[in-house]
């Protein structure tokens, strides 16, 4: 690609492993700050479990609020890893190289964070064990296979395990580099983790196959996970606003939109934090911006279908839900904010090349997308419940308590903290991927112009 500098392997190792051996003060300050927030969130969750769910804003009929919104949001962010890593690997896009591991790692930690949400939401989290797992805890009572809430753990567990395996397999060559650059106890640990990797053609060939094969296998899992999470909503017939056949692909495409936006934000952040200007360049965020345009348009199509068919049914409770979302403050303000920040502003800006190549504007637009997408989940869940019919004694409203807000803020801090702690132990940008990019890079001369080219293996 045009802007890349040719770097020596020694320089690449030094740049990308720098933080592991010696972190900057900036890094430690940020880690410390995030740790404090996370501890605060743990305290809030502990308080909630100790006192009971009445400390939240949840009440009949709105039994799902901030925490479930947050659960769906983080499941959404977790889709970024597979989207970028798997699809770009399969399509052999060169610009994926600095983004893949950061995206995969973001997937793992956002999944882990997402999983904590429904667990603490139960109020008595220890009970989740026998609700979700097929073990005879209670003398012959087994989880209900027909429940969407039981499909969730199977899907999320599969995705989490697969993502961890995916990251680990691709990490082995870099663990060998760390082994060779370390001494003492660190060297011993990396030696065990790298499992004796030497870099023979056989090992590299199987690495390449692993990348393709695991990508191809994880892709169907990634589609199924958020579809199954959407089934938590769409299977119900009492909440008409949720009972829509479009929910599965709608949630998946929304997840991809918020996930890829999240990866862009994180990539620009780590570029700043670790001084990786040579590795995360304007051409990468330009390419991601173009991808986001396509994803945003697809998302809007599914949103339009979901919205239009909500009104198509002409059912009283569903129309009441839409009315609440669009015309009753403060929900109407939230709705306006959601649609403007999730779609219109970012898409409008991404159409301009200068915006896509600007680190500042891409940070702003991708943060806006995630603000909007968080609100989107909130506006699906709460107004739907607030206006559902059938066994509802009241049409109540909902406001989050300080406990819920603290927990939600804590989850954002937790994901970022875990991400940064990962960066302290493992490289966030795959070293061999960057080096391979240099090997495969070349130029073609056409007339007076030199066009960048890539060697393709047939």
């Amino acid at each position, binding site marked *: 690609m045009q802007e890349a500098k040719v770097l020596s392997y020694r320089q690449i190792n030094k740049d990308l492993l720098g933080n592991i051996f010696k972190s900057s003060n900036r890094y430690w300050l940020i880690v410390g700050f995030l740790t404090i927030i996370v501890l605060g969130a743990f305290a809030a969750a502990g308080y909630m479990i100790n006192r009971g769910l009445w400390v939240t804003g949840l009440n009949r009929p709105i039994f799902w609020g901030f925490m479930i919104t947050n659960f769906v949001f983080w499941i959404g962010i977790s889709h970024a890893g597979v989207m970028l890593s798997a699809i770009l690997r399969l399509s052999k896009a060169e610009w994926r190289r600095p983004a893949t591991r950061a995206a995969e790692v973001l997937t793992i930690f956002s999944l882990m964070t997402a999983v904590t949400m429904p667990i603490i939401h139960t109020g008595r989290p220890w009970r989740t064990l026998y609700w979700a797992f097929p073990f005879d805890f209670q003398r012959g009572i087994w989880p209900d296979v027909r429940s969407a809430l039981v499909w969730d753990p199977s899907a999320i567990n599969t995705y989490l395990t697969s993502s961890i395996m995916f990251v680990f397999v691709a990490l082995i060559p870099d663990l060998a580099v760390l082994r060779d650059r370390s001494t003492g106890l660190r060297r011993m640990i990396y030696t065990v983790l790298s499992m004796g990797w030497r870099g023979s053609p056989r090992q590299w060939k199987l690495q390449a196959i692993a990348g393709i094969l695991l990508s191809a296998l994880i892709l169907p899992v990634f*589609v199924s996970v958020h579809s199954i999470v959407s089934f938590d909503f769409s*299977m119900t017939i009492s909440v008409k606003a949720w009972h829509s056949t479009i929910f599965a692909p709608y949630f998946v495409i929304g997840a991809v939109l918020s996930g890829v936006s999240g990866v862009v934000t994180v990539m620009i952040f780590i570029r700043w934090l670790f001084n990786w200007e040579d590795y995360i360049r304007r051409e990468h965020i330009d390419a991601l911006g173009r991808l986001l345009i396509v994803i945003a348009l697809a998302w809007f199509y599914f949103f339009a279908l979901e919205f239009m068919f909500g009104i198509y*049914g002409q059912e009283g409770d569903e129309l009441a839900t839409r009315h609440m979302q669009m015309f009753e403050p403060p929900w109407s303000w939230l709705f306006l904010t959601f649609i403007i920040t999730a779609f219109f502003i970012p898409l409008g800006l991404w159409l301009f090349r200068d915006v896509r190549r600007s680190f500042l504007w891409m940070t702003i637009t991708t943060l806006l997308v995630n603000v909007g997408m968080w609100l989107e989940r909130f506006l699906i869940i709460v107004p739907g419940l607030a206006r559902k019919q059938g066994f509802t004694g009241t049409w109540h409203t909902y406001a989050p308590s300080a406990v819920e807000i603290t927990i939600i803020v804590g989850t954002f801090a937790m994901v970022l903290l875990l991400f940064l702690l990962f960066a302290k132990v493992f490289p966030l940008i795959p070293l061999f991927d960057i080096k391979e990019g240099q090997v495969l890079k*070349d130029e073609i001369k056409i007339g007076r112009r030199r066009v960048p080219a890539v060697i393709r293996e*047939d």
Partner: protein
Amino acid sequence: MHSTHSLPIGDDVHTKDYKVQLSVHGEELDSKTIIEDVSRGFFAFGAFYKLALLALAALFAVGIVVFVIRAADGLGDASRHQWDYLAAVFAFIVSAAGCAPLIAVALRMTRNHWRRPISRIAELYAVVGLLSLLMFIPLLRVLPPIDGRRTLWFTDEFPGAPVWWNFFGLLGLVIAGLALLFVSALPDWLQTSRRGQGFRAGFAGVFAGRWTGTEAQWKLHRAVLAIMGAFYFLLLIYMLSIINTDFVMSLVPGWKDAIMPAHQALTGIQSALALVLITAFLVRTFGGYKKYFPMEVFWSSSKILMALCLLWAYFWFAAFMTFWYGRMPVEQTILKTFMFESYFIPFLINIFCSWLIPFFGLLMWNPVRKSVWGPTLASCFILVGAFFMMVRLYVPAFNIEDVTAFSLETVPAAVTPNAGDIFIIIGALSGAVFLYMLAAKFIPIISIWEMKEGLLYQRVRTLFRSRFLMVGKPD
């Protein structure tokens, strides 16, 4: 310290004559050969081709005759049930042939090189849009008024709904497709007009207009293709969604299915790629263009086809699961009508041919994907599956007695096609193929300018001890 290559970078390229191999294993092509081969194929008009055109025209004519006889009995809401199979075949043609230009647009956007031989094959299906438009008119006539039933147009007082929104939407789509084809063909018309004589050379010359290939023209050409492509894509998705809602869902009381329009659009894209691959196979085998279609074209397309088969299954499952789970009476009736009882046979054929056979039987296996016959065979199944999907959707919808009922109470019996329906189906399909084959004699079936552009960006290079294809990224 680390040097990567021991050979000098690239070669100087003269714009007119440059040789390069299409791939490491492919055959050698150059600019002059491409122009000569494609022009020769363009001007050839063999006896077999003429015979095929005549036969198709005859079948098309028979279909029209049957249509006219049937239309004489009435063309309104009361006779809607007579046009059920016309609606199904129309939906099949507008989905498959309508989405074909989108294949060219989308693949061009991804900037890969293997798409070049199939670009024009895909774009040429825009001419079939004329037939779609013709078939659409009687179907619009038989659509019942929207008052008293659910509709996407909010109320029965929505101005112009549904007829005019549908008609002008499809008209716009057809015009956009033809415009895309026209702009794409400009440079090739210039090339071919200079290499032949007679009416078609003159036609090409006239349509080439003032095209001379200046840098400004090429820039404009690229911009127009991109903008028209985006416009076509948006209009297409809109049209397929509207057609599905107005001609299927709105006619079935109580059926609220947000994914159905998207499912039809996806089926269109899947069947369009299948159609393009089958056409590419035929052009390769019978058109003498073997070296223009290396295995890589079919192999790379097969991966996309595989993904589309899985997506098809996914969309179907999302709809099925949502309806199956809740046990609501109207949803259970709809499942029984469109899948498990009345139209069970078409549904079985649909699911086997759109997903199970192409995916599990063929495309999942690497040796099958990495061949010319494998993806082509899978494509044949997919087209059959898409047709039966339209049958199981449109036929029962057009046979609903009372479209203003609150919900579907009973499972209606299946309606099998009679002789007239068969002639209409065969006539419509023949008409589509006839139009395409005729158009291929007025517009070169291989995009000369795109093939030549590909030569600019591909080289075979030796890296140490082996040879690899090097692909340029102009950005």
